[in-house]
């Protein structure tokens, strides 16, 4: 502890920040860090580890579903796999990846010396490994881990849930605390730490989309905390929030959950919009078409996200007036989203396009995310949703927007900024393999699921009727291929981190613009110690 005591006085060694030296020693560098770039790297590495963990669970699911009948796992374990796969991918993979990108890029992009509250930034990150240890621990407890789906609907999560549910509840609380602190940091950094001359309407779109995402996070993560708390008291303390016998209502759980859940969906896609809005102009060698409309579209999507939650609940017996209200509000979201897709295409129109790997992922994002958006529109139509509800059509829809949407944009961002982070270019040959394998396999994996759903195959069931056998086998093959393809990405990242490959210049992309390209690659440990003047 003696060395720690010397470190944590903070004041005496404040001269430290004026050097570019990294702290020595693993513990001091990574565990005690207040550096936004180190914390960003930690977030990104953690999220990748979680992506592979959640991916392994998806492999179990697809292996079980390869053939009809129960093959490999017990139904209860299958349910735990679908549940924990969802929880890990949402809270452990996609969200931390975006927070990692925000940490790395926002201070650099807006000319700030670091995040506004650097110590809290460290705390936000280091809560996460503990939270996910708790979550994964439940799988080894008596009675197993959470098996009620990542949406933990009551009474599955109250009356019929395993003993470990309390651990799940507190793990979610920790994730929420981490997310809220991370989001507060992002907002304060953007509002308060912009360099002189960096006006709001000059902000890179990635920064804008994150500003709005952070607002959504602070608004809805506490509601999730409320929902899990009511689940906890219903299960262990005799309350009946979600039990009609005591005057409550299981449907009320769904209202509270989706009031969190739908903005959460946009939390997982708005930063993607920012990433794509950075990459498309770079490789089109044209400025982004319709910058202001992009900002307003993002804000509109965020505003509407609070008015559409019950489109997840069309079959619960709501009054028709409510169903119609939520149907029309949902459809309204396609307008600002359409603006975005139009602007990206218009940016590429008559541009001098080149197809480096970030651009390939970005274009794939636009096409595949739009497919996911269209299936979302189909789901928004109340009467037909009665047919699609809880089928593989829904699974296909949200995996198109989350895997070939959010995850593809994270891949695009990684390839785009890896040279800036590590100082080395990625292995282009392997990266192209990664892209094409991912692109083909993701469609083999998720596209046939639309047909399975339309034909009536329910989700979250370990067995299925015989007529679904062939399509499920194809889907599983796509799943294994997609999972294996991500190992190529692992190799690419490790090669960059270990300094194998071509040295990256300060601005490896000809058409790139922004403050991050005006500093050497890799970015120095401390940047913008003096705020740059933005003209």
């Amino acid at each position, binding site marked *: 502890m003696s060395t720690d005591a010397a470190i*944590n*006085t*903070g*004041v005496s060694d*404040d*001269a430290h920040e*004026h050097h*570019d030296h990294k*702290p020595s020693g693993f513990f001091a560098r990574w565990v*005690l860090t*207040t550096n936004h770039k180190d914390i960003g790297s930690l977030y990104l590495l953690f999220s990748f580890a979680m992506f592979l963990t959640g991916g392994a669970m998806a492999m179990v699911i697809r292996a079980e579903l390869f053939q009809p009948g129960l093959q490999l796992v017990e139904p209860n374990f299958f349910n735990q796999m679908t549940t924990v796969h969802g929880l890990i991918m949402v809270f452990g993979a996609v969200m931390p990846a975006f927070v990692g990108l925000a940490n790395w890029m926002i201070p650099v992009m807006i000319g700030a010396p*670091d995040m*506004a509250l650097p110590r*809290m930034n*460290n*705390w936000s990150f*280091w*809560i996460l490994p*503990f*939270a996910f240890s*708790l979550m994964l621990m439940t799988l080894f407890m008596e009675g197993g881990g959470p098996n009620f789906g990542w949406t933990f609907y009551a009474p599955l999560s109250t009356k019929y849930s395993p*003993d470990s549910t*309390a*651990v799940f509840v*507190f793990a979610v609380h*920790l994730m929420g605390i981490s997310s*809220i602190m991370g*989001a*507060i940091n992002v*907002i*304060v950094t953007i509002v*308060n730490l912009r360099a002189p001359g960096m006006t709001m309407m000059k902000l890179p779109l990635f920064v804008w989309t994150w500003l709005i995402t952070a607002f959504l996070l*602070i*608004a*809805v993560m*506490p*509601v999730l*905390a*409320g*929902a899990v*708390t*009511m689940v906890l008291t219903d299960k262990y*303390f005799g*309350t*009946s*929030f979600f039990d*009609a*016998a*005591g*005057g*409550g*209502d299981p449907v*009320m759980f769904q*209202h509270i959950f989706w*009031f969190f859940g739908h903005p959460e969906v946009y939390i997982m896609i708005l930063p993607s919009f920012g990433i794509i809005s950075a990459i498309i102009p770079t490789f089109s060698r044209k400025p982004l078409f319709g910058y202001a409309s992009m900002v307003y579209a993002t804000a509109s999507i965020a505003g509407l996200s609070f008015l559409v939650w019950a489109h997840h609940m069309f079959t619960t017996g709501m*009054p028709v007036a409510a169903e119609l209200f939520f149907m029309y509000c949902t459809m309204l979201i396609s307008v600002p989203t359409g603006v975005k897709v139009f602007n990206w295409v218009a940016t590429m129109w008559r541009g001098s396009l080149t197809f480096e790997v970030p651009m390939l992922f970005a274009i794939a994002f636009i096409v595949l995310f739009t497919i996911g958006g269209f299936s979302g529109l189909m789901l928004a139509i109340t009467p037909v949703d009665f047919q699609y509800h809880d089928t593989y059509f829904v699974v296909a829809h949200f995996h198109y927007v989350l895997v070939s949407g959010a995850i593809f944009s994270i891949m695009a961002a990684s390839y785009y900024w890896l040279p800036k982070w590590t100082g080395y270019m990625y292995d282009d040959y392997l990266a192209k393999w990664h892209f094409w394998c991912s692109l083909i396999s993701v469609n083999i994996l998720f596209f046939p699921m639309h047909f399975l759903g339309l034909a009536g195959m329910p989700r979250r069931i370990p067995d299925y009727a015989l007529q679904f056998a062939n399509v499920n086998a194809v889907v599983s093959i796509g799943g294994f291929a997609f999972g294996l393809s991500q190992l190529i990405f692992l190799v690419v990242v490790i090669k960059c981190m270990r300094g194998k490959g071509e040295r990256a210049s300060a601005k490896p992309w000809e058409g790139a613009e922004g403050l991050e390209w005006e500093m050497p690659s890799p970015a120095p440990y*401390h940047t*913008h*110690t*003096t705020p740059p003047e933005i003209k």
Partner: protein
Amino acid sequence: MSSSAQHQSSDKATNYYVPSQSIWPIVGAVGLFLMALGAAMWIADGAAQYSWLLFFGAVIIVFMLFGWFGNVITESMTGLYSAQMDRSFRQGMSWFIFSEVMFFLAFFGALFYARMIAVPWLGGAGNNGMTHELLWPEFVAHWPLVTTPDGTTTTAMPWQGLPLMNTVILLVSSVTLHYGHVSLEKGRRTETKLGLGLTVLLGIIFLVLQVEEYIHAYQEMGLTLSSGLYGNTFFLLTGFHGLHVTLGTIILFVLFCRVLKGHFTPAQHFGFQAGSWYWHFVDVVWLCLFVFVYIL
């Protein structure tokens, strides 16, 4: 960013202060982990040793808060913070309070949904006639829900008496705190101590009366956490509010000690301001509680 540019900048007082490494966040993360693990296992398993884990985690958190805030206060008093830093703190605190508002909104939302929708539907309102007929035909929808569909009975807490007194106490405490705040801004330290001390005292009285109310509810009125949706919403809303009053009182007490040590100046007293905002927020939550839980 050449190093010479950085050295020049170190002379400027306006530079944003970026702290070097700190042990406190990881201590806080470990503390939270132990608290979460202890609480969860205690609830799920009931074994007493887990309550010790919870307690141990809480001790670590208190230790962390002392160390962390200690660092921040030292940094502030040595003049490392600029006006920009002050704004970061203010904005951070505002957004934290906004997150707290949303947390309470979840429980108020549950209360409103139950009152306006769930309970009337169980009584057959709208097109729910068959629900009523098939599930609990005897059930009559009314609020406060003193008889649940499955027949649990309880009594409703009247708003006169203790709750009304507590409302007055909290309202007065907001005034005394504001008085202390204004005095601090004018540099009158004695009045600051008086205002702040009175607020802490009122906070403690509020909590004592609330405990009194709970004992009364449990022992004489048959109103418990498990007596149907009325008891659920009553105890979770007032309980979480009470936790916030407890936290607020501790915060104000720490501020009181800091005022005694001569910590704040009329120009720079973010800590005081943050504690004061928090207290006023807790006060507003109580007013909503008083109207929607007790009176209506």
